[in-house]
């Protein structure tokens, strides 16, 4: 299945929506422009707001292959771009020795593409422009960022032994960062930037209903209102959309039809991941918050 690139923002919105990604217009605009202008898209935001998901959904919606590069400290060329298959090369050298091949031929032979192990970034330059997800770029170091500069502006990689590999059709590049360190301006400058924030209550409800179709609307409303209230409170780490979805599926598994203080207390660990935050919310505070949102929801009807 191969889909054409969306021709307008509305089509982009529909494309994302088709894969159950309920985006706001701001995200749709940025995605549309990134596709249209062929620019990398740099997404920053708190953990669990759906940054990585955009790449997955885009790949699915466009019918393209998704290539993912998870960044980590010490990520180097041999695990991100390419590596030579040393054991095969050694065997080839031994064989050549046995056959008596000339050295010059041998060198050409063992640096053939057949001996090349392609890693994500090189894979992304092949084929018909797959979706390349460079996930959590802030986890790697500045040296790797600098390496990306050439790749992202020219869509090419130089391999000293082989020459330059250039993409026939550039990949759709999505870069995400959790901001555990500032990414250098030079890299950001080459990208379209978007800060992915927490969704509004209405949109979060839509997301929950799209992703967890089985749950009752009443439960979904209460869960969303509770999570939204948590994000207003003074916590070390606010729950993201991913946590909302986890929570609602947990509640669904427990056959809860509505929120009550005991269930909230028992399942708070799904939403909050820091002990201090849990200690702060447990017991009376959760009950107070729950009562408040219930009365608000009742007032709305």
């Amino acid at each position, binding site marked *: 299945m191969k889909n054409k690139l969306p021709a307008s923002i509305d089509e982009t919105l529909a494309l994302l929506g088709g894969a159950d990604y309920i985006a706001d217009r701001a995200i749709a*605009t940025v995605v*549309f422009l990134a596709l249209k202008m062929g620019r990398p898209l740099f997404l920053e935001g708190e953990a669990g707001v759906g940054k990585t998901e955009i790449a997955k959904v885009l790949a699915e919606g466009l019918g393209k292959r998704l290539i993912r590069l998870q960044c980590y400290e*010490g990520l180097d060329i041999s695990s991100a771009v390419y590596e030579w298959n040393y054991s095969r090369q050694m065997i080839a050298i031994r064989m050549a020795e046995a056959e008596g091949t000339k*050295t010059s031929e041998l060198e050409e032979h063992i640096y053939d593409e057949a001996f090349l192990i392609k890693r994500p970034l090189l894979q992304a330059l092949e084929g018909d422009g797959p979706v390349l997800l460079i996930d959590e770029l802030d986890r790697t170091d500045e040296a790797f960022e600098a390496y990306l500069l050439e790749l992202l502006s020219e869509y090419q990689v130089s391999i000293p032994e082989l020459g330059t590999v250039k993409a026939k059709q550039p990949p759709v590049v999505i870069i995400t960062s959790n901001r555990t360190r500032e990414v250098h301006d030079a890299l950001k400058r080459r990208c379209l930037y978007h800060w992915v924030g927490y969704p509004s209550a209405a949109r979060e409800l839509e997301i929950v209903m799209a992703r967890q179709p089985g749950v009752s609307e009443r439960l979904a409303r209460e869960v969303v209102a509770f999570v939204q209230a948590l994000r207003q409170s003074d916590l070390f780490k606010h729950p993201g959309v991913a946590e909302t979805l986890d929570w609602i599926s947990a509640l669904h598994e427990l056959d809860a039809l509505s929120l009550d203080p005991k269930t909230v207390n028992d399942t708070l660990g799904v939403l909050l991941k820091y002990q201090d935050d849990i200690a702060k919310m447990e017991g009376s505070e959760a009950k107070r918050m729950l009562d408040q949102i219930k009365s608000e929801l009742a007032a709305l009807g």
Partner: protein
Amino acid sequence: MSEATGKLAENIMHFARVLRQAGVPVGPGTVLDALDAVSAETLRNRDDFYWTLHCVMVKSHAHSILFDQAFHVFWRKPKMLEQLMQMFFQQVAMSGNQEKAKQAGYRRLANAMFDQAHQSSMREVDTGAIEVEARYTASQREVLRAKDFEQMSAGEEAAARQAIAKMRLNRLELPTRRFQTSKGRGVIDMRATLAASMRSGGAVIDLKYKKPCRREPPLVVLLDISGSMASYSRMLLHFLHALMNERDRVQVFVFGTRLTNITRQLARRDVDEALASVSSAVEDWSGGTRIGACLAEFNLKWSRRVLGQNAHVLLMSDGLERDDDGVLELEMARLKRSTRRLVWLNPLLRYDGFEAKASGVRKIMAHVDEFRPVHNLASLDELASALAGSGKAAHNRQYQPQKWLRQKA
């Protein structure tokens, strides 16, 4: 291109200038990108236009607010433009007169950081600086080294600042996960081995090695600028400026009643310029202290952004906390958990009779890896070499917090 588009291009260019004036870095390349984006776009409504410009022109979350304000002012009321332009020209004219601006900045700095009396005496000393240095004997240097910052005269302070600028810091390097070629033993580097082997004809395979690169860990400094620290904090700022010149990945925050990140301001090369821009960025010089609240703000907003990759933290404070609730203890514990090494620098600790009366002192002490007095040049020198220490425990037993707490118990 139609007439209307031409007008739009011009307006976008003007808008970029507005943003630049407001402090959002927007270069000509970005303007071209914006034009490209706008023409690629099927402009349907104002919101689309907003987000189109936003994703091209804003490269940092912090600039979103500036962009938002500028956008609404610029694109809503066409007549505002003229007024705004007039404002820019005034600003441009003002900044054009560099000499004057510098003086003004300097005076602000002087008012904020030094009292008037010091300022006048400092000038006199400055003119004779060369003479002073020529007569500088070893013993005088010794005296200066041991003298408390608080008791220094203006002249001595100037000399101390020069000494700080000349200070050389030892390097502490930790192994990273990246590799470099190694002459001796290490891990076998297959790529280099094969390349070398091919160069020599492929007959012999000579093993090549690689070893992990070593690099300085990031350093985060939290400097207390409250009234009780006033005489030390200005010296420490000079020290931090020297430190930033020596090392990369240093982040500096100052706090009194609120927390301010002054890394960008302090990164200017000239020390006076750097301190001038720091003083205009910080609003709570020599006020009260809310250590707990400021640490809470740091932990919440910054710790996840700057404490990655084995960062070391220097906390420079006298630990005299006003608000006495559980916040300080809680936040110190959290800070300790998220850093590799936490060093507390406290000028008051030089007094042997210094008692842990202030509850804040005891609470901080319980959560640091190491503490040091910083009150004179000698102790700063010592600190500079301590920063290159093993990073595991205090070298010198006298700086171990557990021992200190036991003594004072």
